[in-house]
């Protein structure tokens, strides 16, 4: 294949003509949460970095995560971590050749959707009530 050809080849997912199904939606969300989890990963590094820098910086970071926007990020991150882990485990199960029948894909999809919301909701509830 020459260089010109490789530059003009179409991209793989043709989202505009693709009928939404729980398989495709969950797959897209797995990717999106994966990209989005960059933010909490950096936040954790930032948190650890503030400790040698001193209490002033630590308090500043804590303050940021106590604002409405900070809390929103926190809740979204929590759900993202749980969701990405659950779909990730499902990907590993798929890689082992199990659970690829449509019936199991549908069951595990709903399990992941409901499970991730319930689990992150429970954690937020426990944090708020403590």
């Amino acid at each position, binding site marked *: 294949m020459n260089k010109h050809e490789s530059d003009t080849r179409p991209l793989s997912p043709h989202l505009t003509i693709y009928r939404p199904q729980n398989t495709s939606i969950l797959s897209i969300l797995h990717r999106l949460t994966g990209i989005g989890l960059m933010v909490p990963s950096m936040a954790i*590094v930032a948190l*650890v970095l503030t400790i040698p820098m001193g209490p002033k910086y630590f308090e500043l970071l804590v303050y940021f995560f106590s604002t409405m926007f900070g809390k929103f990020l926190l809740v979204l991150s929590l759900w993202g971590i749980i969701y990405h882990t659950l779909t990730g485990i499902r990907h*590993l199960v798929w890689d082992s050749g199990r659970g690829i029948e449509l019936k199991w894909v549908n069951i595990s999809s709903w399990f992941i959707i409901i499970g991730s919301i319930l689990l992150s909701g429970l954690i937020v509830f426990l944090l708020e009530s403590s």
Partner: protein
Amino acid sequence: MRKLSFFINALFNGDHQKGTDHWVGQRITSVAIVPFVALFLIFFLMNYGSGYEEVKNYFLNPIINSLTILFFVLIFLHLKQGLEVVIEDYISKKLTREIFLKANAVLCNCMGLLGVLALLSIYFIG
């Protein structure tokens, strides 16, 4: 021995031209991260709202400190691997893709390194 060098190559070489190595590397970090996510959620729940001194003392614990170092290495390796696949999927122009892949590798490695250095400095310098 050959198997070991294959795993090491898959994890750290990050050669995105070698599909199988990359795929295997991504599975290794995925499996390794799963228990860490559970630990992270539990520790996050237990320590949310702690003050500066508490958090500092927490990371002065050698077990917590070294586990967190391992966690950082794993998540930033995994982040790098994942973003590599995304970049390869959506950026078809070769030069732009190469630039993004390099920037991604530098960014992820630096973030991981920064986290590890911060943890080490908490433990050894205070």
